[in-house]
C-alpha cells in the first residue's frame, strides 16, 4: 500500500508560469496577513507598468503537473480542467456527470485540495499540481483508501467511485477519524446513484486514509 504525498509548495515552485500568467498566485493563504488587504495598494507599482495581456479565445500554452508528470499543452481558455484531463491528456479517472459543480464525480486534488475539475478552467490550474484518482494508486499498488473501497464493496457501477475515492482520501487526510459533522462536511459534495454509501461509510470508519495532505 502506498499513499502519495502531495504538498503545496513542492509542486508549485519550479514552474515558469507563462507570461500571460504574470504575477503568479499572489494570494496569501488563510491566516496570513496580506499587505494592504482591502486597500488596493498591493502591487500598485506593478499596476503602472504595462497593461495585462489578454489571451485566447484561441489556444494558449498551459503547463501543469498531473499525477507527477509535467504536461504542456495548448488549450482554449474555455476548456475546463476536467475536459482537458479527459480529452487532451486521456486521464479519464475523473468523470463528467453533472458538469455543474454539484455531483463530485470529477473531484481531483489541486495542490492537495479537493476541487471539482468541471468547474475550474484548465488555464486557471496552470503551474499547479493535479492529482486524480489514478495518481493516488494503481490496481497493483492501491492507495489505502482504494483498497478499502474494494474491501468494503463501496462501488457498484463504479462511475461515482473515482470522485468518491479522492474526496474520501482528502477527508481522511484532514480528519483521520472524522466525526459525523466532519463526514457531512467532507463527503456532502459527492453523490452515487447505485447506492454505495454503506460501503463508503465503512471505508471512512476504517479511517485508513493518510497520505494525501488535505491542504
Amino acid at each position: 500500500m502506498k499513499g502519495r504525498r502531495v504538498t503545496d509548495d513542492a509542486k508549485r515552485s519550479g514552474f515558469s508560469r507563462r507570461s500571460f500568467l504574470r504575477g503568479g498566485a499572489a494570494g496569501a493563504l488563510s491566516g496570513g496577513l496580506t499587505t494592504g488587504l482591502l486597500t488596493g495598494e498591493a502591487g500598485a507599482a506593478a499596476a503602472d507598468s504595462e497593461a495585462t495581456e489578454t489571451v485566447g479565445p484561441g489556444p494558449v500554452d498551459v503547463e501543469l503537473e498531473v499525477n507527477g508528470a509535467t504536461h504542456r499543452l495548448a488549450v482554449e481558455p474555455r476548456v475546463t480542467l476536467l475536459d482537458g484531463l479527459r480529452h487532451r491528456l486521456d486521464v479519464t479517472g475523473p468523470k463528467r456527470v453533472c458538469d455543474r459543480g454539484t455531483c463530485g464525480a470529477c473531484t481531483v486534488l489541486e495542490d492537495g485540495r479537493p476541487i471539482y475539475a468541471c468547474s475550474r478552467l484548465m488555464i486557471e490550474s496552470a503551474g499547479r499540481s493535479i492529482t486524480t484518482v489514478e495518481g493516488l494508486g494503481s490496481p497493483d499498488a492501491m492507495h489505502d483508501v482504494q483498497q478499502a473501497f474494494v474491501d468494503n464493496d463501496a462501488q457498484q457501477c463504479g462511475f461515482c467511485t473515482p470522485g468518491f475515492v479522492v474526496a474520501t482520501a482528502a477527508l481522511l487526510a484532514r480528519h483521520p477519524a472524522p466525526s459525523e459533522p466532519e463526514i457531512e462536511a467532507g463527503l456532502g459534495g459527492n453523490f452515487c446513484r447505485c447506492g454505495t454509501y454503506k460501503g463508503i461509510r465503512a471505508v471512512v470508519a476504517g479511517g485508513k486514509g493518510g497520505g494525501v495532505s488535505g491542504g
Partner: protein
Amino acid sequence: MADYSWPEADRRAQIGARPARLDGPVKSTGFAKYPSDQNPRGLLAAKILTCPHAHARIVRIDTSAAEAMAGVRVVHVIQGEGSEIQWAGDEVAAVAAVTEDVARDALRAIQVDYEVLPHFVTEEDRDQAPGAREAGERAEGDPDAAFATAHRTVERTLGMPQMAHMCLEPHGQVCSWDGDELEVDASTQAVSTLAGQFATELGVPASQVRIRTEYMGGGFGSKFSPDRWGIVGAELARKAGAPVKLFLERDQEVTVAGSRPSAFARIRAAADEQGKLVAWDSDSWGSGGLPGTGQTPLPYVFSRLPNRRTRHTSVPTNLAGSRAWRAPNHPQACFLTMAVLDDLADELGLDPIDFLERNLDLTGRPDTYREQLGIAAEMASWKERWQPRGREREGAVQRGLGVSVHTWGGRGHSSNCDVTVHPDGAVEARIGSQDIGTGTRTIVAQVLAETFGLELHQVRVSLGDNVYPQSGPSGGSSTVGGVTASTRRAAQDALREVLVHVAPRLEAEPEQLLAEGGRVFVDGDSSRGVSWREAAAQIGGAPISVQGRNPGRGRLISSGVGGVQIAEVEVDIDTGVVHIERMIAVQDCGLIINRRLAESQVYGGLIMGVGYALYEEWIPDPVSGRLLNADMEFYKLAGLVDVGSLEVHMMTGPGYDERGVIGLGEPPVISPGAAISNAVANAIGVRVPYLPLTPDRVLDALAGRGGPA
C-alpha cells in the same frame, strides 16, 4: 443423462461466500475504461440539438452556418421541416466536430424556426388532461356490498410523480467504422441484443456490428436500446469517416433518457371487525410521458383481496416517454397499497404489522412474509419502539416507524455461456452478458471456481462483448439467474469431460470423482487424487470447450421473492424536513451466490428508495413545458449523510437455498417509498399523500390537520 444442480450446502466453497468484486481495483483506481472514457485516435465529438418547446412544429431549419464553421465535420438533420415535436428535449439535429466545444458552437449556429403548439405536462389533475384514455374497469366479488357492511373504511387520494433514472454515466456510445464493420462502445444493459437493432437501422448485417461494454455507469432499466442518439452517432461516424463519441449532456440525460411513470389513485379499502381486508376500490391514473402509462398492479401483494374493483386512466403528456425503471410499476403499486393499508390499520386501532399478519392469506407467500415480518420487527425493536399515531413527543422533532412488504419475480433470462478448460488447467468463461455494477463478472467467476474446485484468481471471465455467446439484457433481476445457470451447466459438462479423461489414471469411474480445493480425487478417498493441473493435462492437446444454456435442465433457478422493510424517521414538524434514522430490509432471493454483492444490491435499493421517497421528482414547468430541474442541483439524489443507518438481513438456508438462484436487483427498491411514508404518518399523525416527502408537502399535510403553516 447428466443433470445439473448446485452443490450441497456443506460442499460449497464459493457459493454463498463473500469474495470482493473482481473489478474493484480497476474501478477504485480509475483505471476502468468506461464507454465514455474511450478516446480512439482521430475521435470526433458529437452533440445533439434539442427542441426547447414541449410541442411544436419545425417550420424551417437552416444548418448552413454550422456547416461552414471550421472544425465541423458533419451536420445531420434528425427531424426536418414539418416535423411535429411532442416533448421538449426531442432531438432535432446533430453535429460531429473536432472538439465538443466546436460541436456546441455549431449547434448554436443552427437556426430552427418553430411553430409553438399547446402543451400539457402536469398530469396530477387528470380532469384537465387532453387525450386521457380509460383503460377499463376490472372487478371481482361484490365490492359495493362489502363496503356497505364493512367495519372500517378509509378513502385516500395518493400519488407520486415521474422521476428520472439519472444514470451517472449518460446514455451514449463511441462508434467506429472499418469499412462496413461497425464497432460500438456503448453504455448499455444489453450487449447481446444491441447489434441487431443497430444493424436494422443502419442497413448492415448484424454480423458486422460489434458491441463492447466492459464497464458501464448505471442503467436501472433505461439502457436497453441503441436509441436515436446511437443510430445518429453511427451515421455521423460513417459520414465523417472517423470515430464519433456521442454522449448526452446531463440536461438531456434527465429529460429524455429515462423516467419512471407517475401514479396517482383515489383508493377506498375496508376491513371487518377482525381486521380482515374485505373490499378494495381504486381509481388510478398516471403518465409515462407521451405514451401514457399502463395499470399498476393494485392491490399490491394482497392481490387475493376478495371484493375489489380497479379502474385506470392513462394520461399522455408532452414529455419524453418513460422507460423501465427498476421494478417497473411496483414501487408505485407498493406505495399506493401499503399507505392505504397502514391508514386502515390506524383506523382499526391495530399495530400495522399485526394488521398485515392478519391478512397474509391474501398474499402469494404468507409463510415467507410471516417469517420476514418477525425478523424485521425484531431488528427494529418494533414492539418496544412502535407507538400508535398521535402520541407526540415534546419538541419539534417527532419519530415514527413504518413497514411495507413487496414481491418480485426475478427468473433468470435466456443465456449462453462458453466454458473452456485448457490443457494447462486454465479455465475461462465467455458470455455475452454485461456487468452493470451488480457484480455479474464476479458471480460467473464464482460459479466457475466452485464447479472446478478452484480459487477465484484461477478462473477468467470475459463478458461485455457480443462476440461472446448471446446472453440476455440485464433487466428485471433476470441476469443472476440466467448467467449462473448457463455457466453452471457449461462448467459441469466441461468438468465431466475432464473427469472422463482423469478417471483411468485414478482407477475410478468419472462419477466417483470430485473437483475440490484445487484437486481432483475419488469421493471418500481423497488420497487417490491429482492436482487440478495434472487433471487438466489428461485432456490431451486441445482444450475442452462447452456451451451451457439457460433455460435448461436441472433445478438451478427459480422465481418469486418476498421482502419486508421497516423505516424509522425523524420529522421536524416546524420545517417539514424528514430525516431517515434507520432502514431495515429483510429479503429473500433463493440461493445467494455472493453474500457481499447481494447485500450491496439491497443497500443500493434502500438508498435509491430514500431518494424517491424524500427527494426525487421530475419538475415540469406548466408554462414552458420544460423540465425545471434537468440537473443534479434541484433534481436531488440522496447523499451519504441522508440515508441513516442501514441494516440488511438476507434469508438463507433451508427453505430458501434449495429454490435455486433468483434475481435481486429490483425487490429492495420497491418498499422504501411505502415504508418511509408510513413512518412519517406514524410520526406526525397524518398521511402525507404524495411522494417525495418534501417539506412543503409535509407542512401542507400538517396544516390540513390544523397544525402549523
